[in-house]
């Protein structure tokens, strides 16, 4: 092994771009993605209306299924991979997700506490009298 690794002159992949595949393989990728997404969607709609499972688990299941389906879309439709030619795309995605979680998680957290700690207005008025 040489300690000088000559990087091949190869460019990063643009988001949404696939590595060189034949048309047949690319179509297969989309078909697999569509089948998985339809399956997850059907499961979500089934779970939401069923009495078969423990009721408090339904919201958790729905969120997990939604995240799984977003993953399927990212991999099969947007072709985000873990390959070295995709590092920039993944890093941008990771930053975006961080902001999303800060915004949504932070809002729900803070507003939940505000609701808990603030009695409704009529109760405040009673306390003042």
């Amino acid at each position: 092994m040489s300690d000088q690794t000559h990087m091949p002159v190869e460019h990063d992949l643009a988001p949404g771009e696939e590595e060189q595949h034949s048309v047949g393989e690319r179509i297969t990728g989309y078909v697999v993605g569509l089948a998985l997404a339809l399956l997850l969607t059907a499961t979500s709609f089934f779970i939401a209306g069923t009495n078969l499972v423990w009721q408090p688990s339904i919201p958790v299941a729905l969120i997990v299924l939604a995240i799984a389906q977003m993953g399927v879309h990212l991999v099969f439709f947007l072709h985000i991979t873990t390959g070295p030619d995709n590092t920039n795309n993944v890093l941008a995605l990771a930053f975006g997700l961080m902001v999303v979680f800060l915004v949504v998680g932070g809002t729900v957290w803070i507003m939940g506490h505000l609701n808990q700690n603030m009695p409704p207005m009529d109760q405040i008025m009673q306390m003042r009298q």
Partner: protein
Amino acid sequence: MSMTATVGRAHADPHHIGLVVEHPGPAPKRTVTAYGFWVFLLSDIVMFSCFFAAYAVLADQTAGGPKGSEIFEQRNVAIETVCLLLSSFTCGMASIAADVRNRFWFYLGMAVTCVLGLIFLAIEFREFADLVSRGYGPSRSAFLTSFFSLVGCHGLHVSAGILWLLTMMAQVFAKGFRADVLRRMMCFALFWHALDIVWVGVFSVVYLLGSGV
């Protein structure tokens, strides 16, 4: 270890970091364009996340108006979801056809995508019109405000996407599969797939979680 090969560079690379990049120059325009658009899409998703956060906070503030479970029709939402999913698929087919420069499959894929998108918009518009006519417009309660703004924002994106889709068909018709047209097509495909991802969040959080409350 072939030491001889490194002798000439021993001073230039004293720590033997070892990676000698044969500078490939700037990335091709296709990569740069799509990456820039990817960053825009992520910022768009951050914007959607604000609407999601507002909805999550306000979903219970019905001010005596209807709750989500009273106004959502799961059958319509299921049809909308299937339409968007299939349109994402046909959009993928159209972008493959564009890459291999096959006009027939490109037009067919784009046309089907357009029809599915229009069906989605029609169902959504009917739902909104129905709600407003029953007096459950966006001004009825904080819950309905956040509902209309989140779902309506997604609907606006889909409308813009359909305009863009028709523009792409016209451009391919007028200019053929030129490099710049193909770049725009690539960005359009990214946009359309990203809208589908946002819709996954919408139907899960708003319609399915909301109808259980």
